[in-house]
């Protein structure tokens, strides 16, 4: 499927064009010639095994790291060419939910959600209170406003972080492993919230995860990354029906396949002295 026609009618809010990335010169290449499109209003999942570079994609979009080659475009502007103030300006239009919430541990739930509003908007305390309670209500935690992060569960922390990520009503929301370590109830709640928030805000959601059932339930389009490149892409239905060995292994959670079970090394016979 060609990049231009694969995402239907919407123009992209984020595009990656021929991106190469490694964390230091001479180190392992994390991403190589990556092309991705993230159309407005959709939930797009980026999937792949641990360490395949999924989170790096989010860090590139947020401008926390820069590509060595290629372009990362946010609303048509090259993120890699921006200075600090330009980066700060586009980040106000992005929300990000980190893997374990990344809540500020010295602030209450209320203050965590209020943080971006206090920093970037001149609203009165009264308006701020109403806004924060509305965001907390959307994630079902209005009653937990006075609790500290240490007093809430992992799932609740993720929901507070979601409320904080949407505090400024950003057009782009990025989720880094939002389902990791959650119990089934919290997992279902988080997945539904992501879909609901995306629709309610008219935002675009980029979901970095390796949790197949929940992601296929809510995503409009899915990218699979392996070895720093797009290994497969399509709608969840396309991927379920795919005969690609990598996709089949990933979707069916098979231990062996194109991604080998054994880490490369000497053969079993060599290690146990059966061959000379």
């Amino acid at each position, binding site marked *: 499927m060609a990049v231009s026609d694969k995402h239907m009618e919407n123009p992209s809010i984020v595009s990656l064009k021929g991106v190469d990335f490694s964390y230091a010169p001479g180190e392992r290449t994390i991403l190589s010639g990556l092309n991705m499109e993230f159309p407005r209003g959709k939930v797009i999942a980026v999937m792949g095994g641990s360490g395949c570079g999924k989170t790096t994609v989010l860090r590139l979009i947020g401008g926390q790291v820069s590509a060595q080659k290629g372009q990362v475009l946010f609303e048509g502007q090259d993120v890699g060419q921006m200075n600090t103030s330009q*980066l*700060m300006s586009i980040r106000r239009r992005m929300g990000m939910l980190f893997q374990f919430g*990344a809540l*500020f541990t010295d602030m209450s739930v209320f203050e965590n959600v209020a*943080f*971006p509003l206090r*920093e970037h908007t001149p609203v009165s305390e009264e308006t701020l209170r109403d806004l924060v309670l509305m965001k907390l209500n959307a994630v079902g935690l209005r009653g937990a406003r006075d609790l500290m992060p240490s007093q809430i569960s992992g799932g609740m922390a993720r929901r507070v972080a979601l409320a904080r990520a949407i505090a400024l009503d950003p057009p782009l929301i990025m989720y880094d492993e939002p389902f990791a370590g959650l119990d089934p109830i919290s997992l279902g709640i988080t997945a539904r919230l992501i879909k609901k928030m995306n629709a309610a805000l008219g935002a675009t959601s980029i979901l970095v995860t390796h949790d197949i059932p929940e992601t296929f339930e809510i995503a409009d389009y899915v990218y699979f990354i392996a070895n720093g490149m797009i290994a497969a892409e399509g709608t969840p239905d396309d991927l379920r029906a795919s005969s690609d060995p990598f996709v089949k292994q990933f979707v069916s959670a098979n231990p062996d396949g194109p991604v080998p079970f054994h880490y490369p090394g000497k053969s079993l016979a060599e290690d146990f002295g059966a061959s000379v």
Partner: protein
Amino acid sequence: MNSVLNTLASLGAFVRQNLYGLGYATRMFLTIMRRSAFLLKRPRLVTDQVHFVGNYSFVIIAVSGLFVGFVLGLQGYYTLNKYGSEQALGLLVALSLTRELGPVVTALLFAGRAGTSLTAEIGLMKAGEQLSAMEMMAVDPLTRVVAPRLWAGIIAMPILAAIFSAVGIMGGYLVGVPLIGVDEGAFWAQMQAGVDVAQDIGNGVIKSMVFGVAVTFIALFQGYEAKPTPEGVARATTRTVVIASLAVLALDFLLTAVMFSS
């Protein structure tokens, strides 16, 4: 020959790495200073931290000051008594504390108490992705988190040193006057006559401000640059104590040489 070349190469790499580290830290320090104007709009961020780091260290500094004062009173009396100059005990205690012991011991205690807390706090914020989260919320962590703590250290250190010296003088008084029997009038009069506000107290305050910059920045830098793992934060905390203590002692020598050379 090869081993000599290898040694030279290792030495060169070591020097280059340290120079790079020093340059990087200097750039970070200058960036913090440049962005500190933001704090004029939100002084509460600094005052909260002054309260925080001050509270961390107050008890240990006050108690240490008292015992250092006790010891100075005893040692000073034994020495001065040999020359029949025990009336100068107040002067000896006051000069020792305001010129040297107050700023230096306070800075060392501050490094061990508040410095390690700052390193661990910033390091754990980094490990918990709180600093990254802040960046992604378009809030600069250097301006919002690091700068207020640095200024808090610079403000708190002279106050803590003054408390240390004041409590120490009281300790010296308690041992010298009620316990040993030095004349109370002579104790205070000698101190009043011999301590110069600008030369002794002023230079002590300048010293403690310089130590405040050094210790707090080292603590914050180590936390900010810590590897985001439990082991990385633990190592950074240890480095804070070692580097800050050595820096305080080295700076003390330099400052003393400049301030009291005449």
